[in-house]
């Protein structure tokens, strides 16, 4: 059963076709990597899946809802309810502590719950760092806080944009291990990356080139 169904989607900026009649689907519980060089349409794809942009044409069904026709206000609601975002630059609110940053996500979603937020930090191994400001955390720790923030509202889909792009190998492995754990729990993961190692951690890799799907690779070694 597919969670995300992209049908014949094009996105055109003036003369430039960022996405050219792309169709992909992602099943519920699947872990998919989207790869491609700069200018391949990765970012545009990410924006559309993340409900931050709309395609010029085509259909985008997220959990059965066509988000290509929704108003931006509804897109915000959908993003808040269904998607957990993880960014390359971490993006924490720099004057809030780790646990407060997690609670911000709860605040916009439903109700802030400090206990639950602390549990989420526990999961990413940062229970003791909960009262630290972002400036007091390492890059790896910040990204783990962001993972905690992304999963706090139990989203259908976790959408990660180059989640390990600013991390060293040790932290990259920690984050990938967290993803694997989320995958085992049934969370759908879409990871946009240009790092083959990160892509190989996923079940399937979709490679974009020049706004089109160049190929799809099933990772034979997944789970091994």
């Amino acid at each position, binding site marked *: 059963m597919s969670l995300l169904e992209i049908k014949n989607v094009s996105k055109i900026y003036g003369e430039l076709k960022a996405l050219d009649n792309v169709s992909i689907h992602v099943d519920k519980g699947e872990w998919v990597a989207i790869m491609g060089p700069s200018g391949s349409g990765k970012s545009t794809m990410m924006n559309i899946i993340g409900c931050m942009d709309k395609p010029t044409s085509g259909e985008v069904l997220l959990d059965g809802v066509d988000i290509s026709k929704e108003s931006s206000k509804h897109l915000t609601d959908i993003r808040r309810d269904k998607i957990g975002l993880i960014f390359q*630059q971490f993006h924490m609110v720099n004057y809030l502590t780790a646990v407060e940053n997690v609670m*911000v996500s709860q605040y*916009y979603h439903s109700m802030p719950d*400090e206990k639950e937020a602390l549990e989420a930090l526990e999961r990413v191994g940062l229970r003791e760092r909960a009262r630290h400001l972002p400036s007091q955390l390492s890059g790896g720790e910040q990204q783990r806080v962001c993972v905690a923030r992304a999963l706090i509202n139990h989203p259908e889909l976790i959408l990660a944009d180059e989640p390990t792009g600013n991390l060293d190998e040790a932290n990259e492995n920690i984050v990938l291990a967290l993803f694997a754990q989320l995958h085992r729990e049934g969370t759908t993961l879409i990871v946009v990356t240009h790092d083959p190692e990160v892509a190989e951690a996923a079940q399937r890799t979709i490679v974009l080139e020049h706004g089109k799907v160049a190929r799809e690779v099933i990772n034979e070694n997944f789970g091994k």
Partner: protein
Amino acid sequence: MTKRRMFLRMITASLLRRRSRMLIALLSIGIGATILAGLVTIYVDVPRQMGAQFRSYGANMLLLPKDGAELNSQNLSEALQAIPADVLVGAAPYRYVRLDMTTRQQSFTAAGTDFSQIVKTSPYFSVEGAYPSETRQVLVGKEIADTIGVKVGSTMELTWQPTNNAAGKTPEESRVPGASLSGKAEGFGGGVVYVTAVLDENAGIASLTVDASTQTPEYGGRIPDDESFLNQFIGKSLPLSLGEDVDALSGATVTSSAVVDALNKATEGSASVQPKTLNFTVTGILTTGGEEESYVFLSLKDMEMMTDSDQLDVAELSVSASVDQLEAYAGAIAENSASVSARLVKRVARSEASVLEKLTALVFLVTLVVLLLTMICVSTTMMAVVSERRREIGLRKALGASDGSIRAEFLGEGLFLGLLGGVMGAVLGFVFAQVVSVNVFGSSITFQPLLLPAAVIVSMLIAAVSCLLPIKRAVAIDPALVLKGE
């Protein structure tokens, strides 16, 4: 945790953990609120402040005797009851008479007054030397001093020449031994007959002269020279009755009757009242730039002694009040007193009102400008805050913040700043107003309790209005910016 608590936690964290930026925003609101609160305090207090200042321009109300009535210290102090003591700066009574300086053959207007009140009602009086502090001392106007060449310490001999019947005696009171009487009555054909008589030690008539120049020469006109007619009066006491005490001159009955009539009505004349002469020491020379320089001022006590009367001509009042209030006081005085009427010195009262109007308008304008500047300043700072926090705003939107949430958060921060700035402004504004008041007006002001809530509400409003544009900017930020790995 409730959403509201998280909201407050985020706002306070934003303000407390981003101190340097927020301090600038707080300062701009706080300083604006300070100046506003200060100006408003001054604005409210200006009439009172200036009221006291204006009193240095002299009296703004006059008390005068009503028609046919007399003003004296008794009914003056009664009339002054109508004016509250705390607004009555001073009340200077004046009695004006002509005094002669016989040694110089000069005469001038002399004013009897209360010097302790003059200091209050006419603070612009400039005295070389000192105000008289005792009786027999005078303050001499500069013009007179120059003319007759007196200096501080000189002595002046001043003489009061009583006018006829100045003492206001009745004919009966006048008939005392040695008195010199004069009188008149209507004679033949409407002509007036004048008589003068001097009384002997028994108050009988010692001598008598008649002026009958208006009468027919061959009849009544003969009387002044008719010794036998005139002699009948000698030794007789007034009043007289024609036909009983004296006989009429034949052929001049009407004129004879007029002579008797005039004698019966005659009162004490000038000849019998001795002019009073007193010696005074000049204690000061007065310069005012006005007509006061041609006056001689002496104490009311000396004036009463010289003229045998405590009558006053006018009282000059200096009242610290608006034109409307002055008019109300004047009305109350006229109503309550049978003998005293009050009048505003329009020139002074009006110019005060117009200066006050201009001053309050000025303060109002400055307040408006400061208000505007504060808004621009706060708005600019908040604008900088928004662009500095673009990514954070983008992140919040990416995390699902609605436009309303973003608005609420920035408005919340703005209002919080407004609250802090308002409290700061109320306190510092009062200090500012106090400093201005003490340095400019030379008096302190009282704290208006209403200032605190007013300053807080106004600065929160300013903050809110100033945040409108920055919030618009914040809401327009595209959440996708957080994805692009900038």
